[in-house]
């Protein structure tokens, strides 16, 4: 129903390598949000995607929303140690009520 599936669960990369996490839903999403949670921290909003096929960039981060609005991805180019943390996708109903979070992808970066 409302669940969003997120893969991989965990990724350990060498500094400078790229990283991608994927979020999938069985139903059409009105929007998808991405949050980052540093170890021991709280979720921090990164971005919201609303339009079919939308692509947004924030420096080394690229966010995509699928054409069918059932999947999304976050890609980090040339990871740095500051990128470590857990990246969550979350769906919200159109008028932004509760967030339903994916399981998250834990990113570790080896320097």
């Amino acid at each position, binding site marked *: 129903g409302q669940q969003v599936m997120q893969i991989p669960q965990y990724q350990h990369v060498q500094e400078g390598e790229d990283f991608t996490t994927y979020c999938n839903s069985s139903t059409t999403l009105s*929007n998808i*949000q991405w949050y980052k*949670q540093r170890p021991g*921290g*709280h*979720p*921090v*909003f990164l971005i*919201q995607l609303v339009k079919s096929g939308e692509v947004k960039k924030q420096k080394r981060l690229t966010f995509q929303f699928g054409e069918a609005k059932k999947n999304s991805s976050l890609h980090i180019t040339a990871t740095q140690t500051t990128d470590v943390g857990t990246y*969550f996708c*979350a769906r*919200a109903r159109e*008028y*932004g*009520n*509760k*967030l*339903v*979070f*994916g*399981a*998250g992808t834990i990113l570790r970066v080896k320097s």
Partner: protein
Amino acid sequence: EPEVTQTPSHQVTQMGQEVILRCVPISNHLYFYWYRQILGQKVEFLVSFYNNEISEKSEIFDDQFSVERPDGSNFTLKIRSTKLEDSAMYFCASRASGGANEQFFGPGTRLTVL
């Protein structure tokens, strides 16, 4: 930059005791939320609050839980009789009105039930 604050940062309690977790949302926000995160797991929605009433609650939010906005700034979560499985990090979040969907999370309260 305005931020959501939460107190205490860590609460240890005995099973069966009542706890109150406190939050001060961002001042011009109108929508308030509580989420919890069991260690190593995903963030789970508990309850949303708007216009001085609960707008939605999850299955987790049973009769042992209640929320209150006692004044113009505080937003509290009360657990009447804590259970071991209530041990988790509890996050408060708030959101502005006008269709903005971004939720601002507080630093969390780590609740440990012994």
